[in-house]
């Protein structure tokens, strides 16, 4: 053990910290360019890039939500259901009073439901992801009832007026994303509450003994996740204009892609801060989907197969030198 190397080590690492992301991004861009050439220039057209980016935005907020959820040890399978209901609200209120309605409706319902989830996780101590499946059943059933209900059906399933969908379109979606990135990054990496969250996720007992108020911190996570998921509702409804629902836990499907984004970002975590990694991975993910579509790989079947393989390969690379216990 060395006494005096501390500063050198940390500086050395800071310098190295920039190398990997840089190389990584160059490799990705190079891959895009090469693919573009192969695809006869169909990939890197302005329209196509716009397409990819505008699609990539709303899952980013969900994936950020996962960052905080997982950081404190929760897995919430009901987020898909929350998003369906939040999007319904955004649509119903949006068509009544405009963009403000979209924001209020989505944020409110998304926030309240996420917060309810958190209260259930924190105070009932039911393992979160089992509770999450139960909650998903409940939310789906409510959504389904709304969709099939005589009075509610037309309100929640009609398309959101395209005038009120600007938040989900470029350039506004990018503006919101940029602001979100800065705020979420600071929250996760540079604030007490961010570290407190990560601390109780790491070791609850030690955190408590160090004077961190565990319940207060968990509620803070609830608030943060609520805001992020609420925003995701707003963005998804504004992007898609319409949300469909089926029963039988199908809403869990909705979170697979954000989950894949989170998992990719987590694998890169050693080299790229996870909050920054999320948007990067989202763009990569949807680019890959886009490439597959250009290559005429059918979506809903083989594209998913590629996505699965993609995650596993990433995980293989990321876990390459991992020692110790992995469950």
């Amino acid at each position, binding site marked *: *053990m060395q006494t*005096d190397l501390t500063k050198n080590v940390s500086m050395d690492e800071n310098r190295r910290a920039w190398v990997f992301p840089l190389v990584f991004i160059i490799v990705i861009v190079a891959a895009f360019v090469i693919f573009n050439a192969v695809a006869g220039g169909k990939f890197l057209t302005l329209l196509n890039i716009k397409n990819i980016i505008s699609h990539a935005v709303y899952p980013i907020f969900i994936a950020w939500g996962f960052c905080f959820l997982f950081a404190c040890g929760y897995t919430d399978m009901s987020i898909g259901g929350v998003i369906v209901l939040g999007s319904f609200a955004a649509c119903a209120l949006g068509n009544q009073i405009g963009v403000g309605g979209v924001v209020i409706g989505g944020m409110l319902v998304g926030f309240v439901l996420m917060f309810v989830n958190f209260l259930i996780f924190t105070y009932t101590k039911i393992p979160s992801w089992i509770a999450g499946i139960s909650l998903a059943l409940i939310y789906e059933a409510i959504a389904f009832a709304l969709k099939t209900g005589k009075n509610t059906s037309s309100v929640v399933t009609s398309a959101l007026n395209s005038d009120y969908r600007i938040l989900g379109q470029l350039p506004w979606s990018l503006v919101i994303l940029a602001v979100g990135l800065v705020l979420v990054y*600071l929250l996760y990496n*540079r604030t007490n509450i961010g*570290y407190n969250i*990560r*601390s109780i996720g790491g070791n609850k007992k*030690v955190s408590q003994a160090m004077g961190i108020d565990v319940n207060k911190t968990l509620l803070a996570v609830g608030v943060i996740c609520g805001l992020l998921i609420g925003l995701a509702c707003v963005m998804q409804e504004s992007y898609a204009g319409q949300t469909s629902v089926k029963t039988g836990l199908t809403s869990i499907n909705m979170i697979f892609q954000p989950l894949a984004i989170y998992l990719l970002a987590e694998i890169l975590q050693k080299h790229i801060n996870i909050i920054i990694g999320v948007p990067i991975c989202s763009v990569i993910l949807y680019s890959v989907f886009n490439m597959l579509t250009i290559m005429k790989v059918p979506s809903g079947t083989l594209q998913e197969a590629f996505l699965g393989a993609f995650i596993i390969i990433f995980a293989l690379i990321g876990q390459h030198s991992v020692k110790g216990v992995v469950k």
Partner: protein
Amino acid sequence: MSENILEIRGLNKYFGPTHANVDVDFTLKRGEVHGLIGENGSGKSTLLSQIAGLYGSDSGEMKVNGQPYKPHSPLDAYDHKIAMVMQELGVVGSLPAGINVFLGRMNRFSKAGILNKKALYKEVADILEKWDLSAPPLNRNTDGMSIESRKMIELARALSVDPEILLLDEVTQSLSLNNRERLYKLIEKFKSMGRSIIVITHDIEEMIEITDNVTVLRDGAVVGTVISSETTPDEIRNMMVGREVEGGYYRDDYAPDFSDKVELEVRNLTVAGEIENVSFDVHEGEILGFCGLSDSGIHTVGQAVYGLTDKKLTSGTVHLMHNDTYVNNATTALRNNVGYVPKDRDNEALMIAANIRDNFGLPSVHVIRNKGTGFIHPGKVKKLSNDMVDKLSVKTTGIYQTMDSLSGGNKQKVNLGRWLAKDIKLLILDCPTRGVDVGVKAYIYSIMKEAKKDNIAMILISDELTEVLGMSDRIIVMKDGKVSGEMDRSEDLTEQKVIGVMI
């Protein structure tokens, strides 16, 4: 300012039906290093925890600087300049080392809610430098670090408060010799600054060496306080146990005594980056001791002999003579009458949340099972555990009690006993008495003596020199991963001689 910085009168603490502290009176002077000693469960850690604000007290009062003191949380204690390094609490593994030091108290590094990490790390580095402690990389997560580095982080955390009273609960047991020396210097410096320290350690010799006064606790109550320079280890031992400790402690013979038959032949054992060309023999009925400083690789030797080190990095041969087998992996070792007691009892040795039966049975499952059908008779496992509980007199309500509710000494009995339940030819012991009290320590030594009589070959790896000297027939001293000396047991082999070869 009064001479007494801390005064405790009539302190009581209950945990359910357990009366953990009984009317404790305690006084700590300014500039005093005060030792607390007692067997496991005597209430010393509980006492420190109350001073540090981890537990409230049920009755009695504490005064700091003559002012009433009733801490509600560790942070409250910090405000009174009191900080504690706990025995088994640790750090948050998923956070950087530097953050761990100020976790929960990072406000002063924040501006407008945004944390200045650089300033924080600098402050931590300054603290470590000020007290001359070895520093692990501060921006690295702690879960990849050694116990020793993590202890340093905990020490830095306590010192960051700039405490007037520092409470150290079993800190030395996780440190190797060179870092212990550093800690002793820290204690001296503290003293010279007129600050006070309360130390808990199981190592009585160490205790007498570094403290001014020692208070002995038994069953939650104070037995008495003695002046360190005027007492002897035996006096303290007797006070702790409440009677004369019989039958000696270490071995009372002073000559090597073992069979000529070699049981284990190790040749050119190398683990890249850790140990290099280590060769030795262990004979039947021999205790071979290993000692060395923290980077000497003595613990790696134990792991490598049991086949636990990374295959790609390991070379050389480990030859078991009794059935002419070469150990390439731990499974071979397990199946060929070798036992291994790892250093980190709670993380490497025991299934802490499982019951006693499962812990006793695990290494024997493959022996108990019916070779044809694979059937493991539950009754046989139960019998094995019950027999061992009786034989080792493990203090328990029964074999279905979970391990985490046992005391350290009883945990260690299970840890050792599960090997003794088998037909063992070679036993590797890595710090077998770490964190256990005198009574259990003496008991473990007696088990070792018995095993020796049964012709079991033993490798004793330890950070406690007195133990290695007291128990081994031969001692191998290691330095920087290589064997630097080999000595036979004799009356005039002293610690100084061994240390001379170590450094």
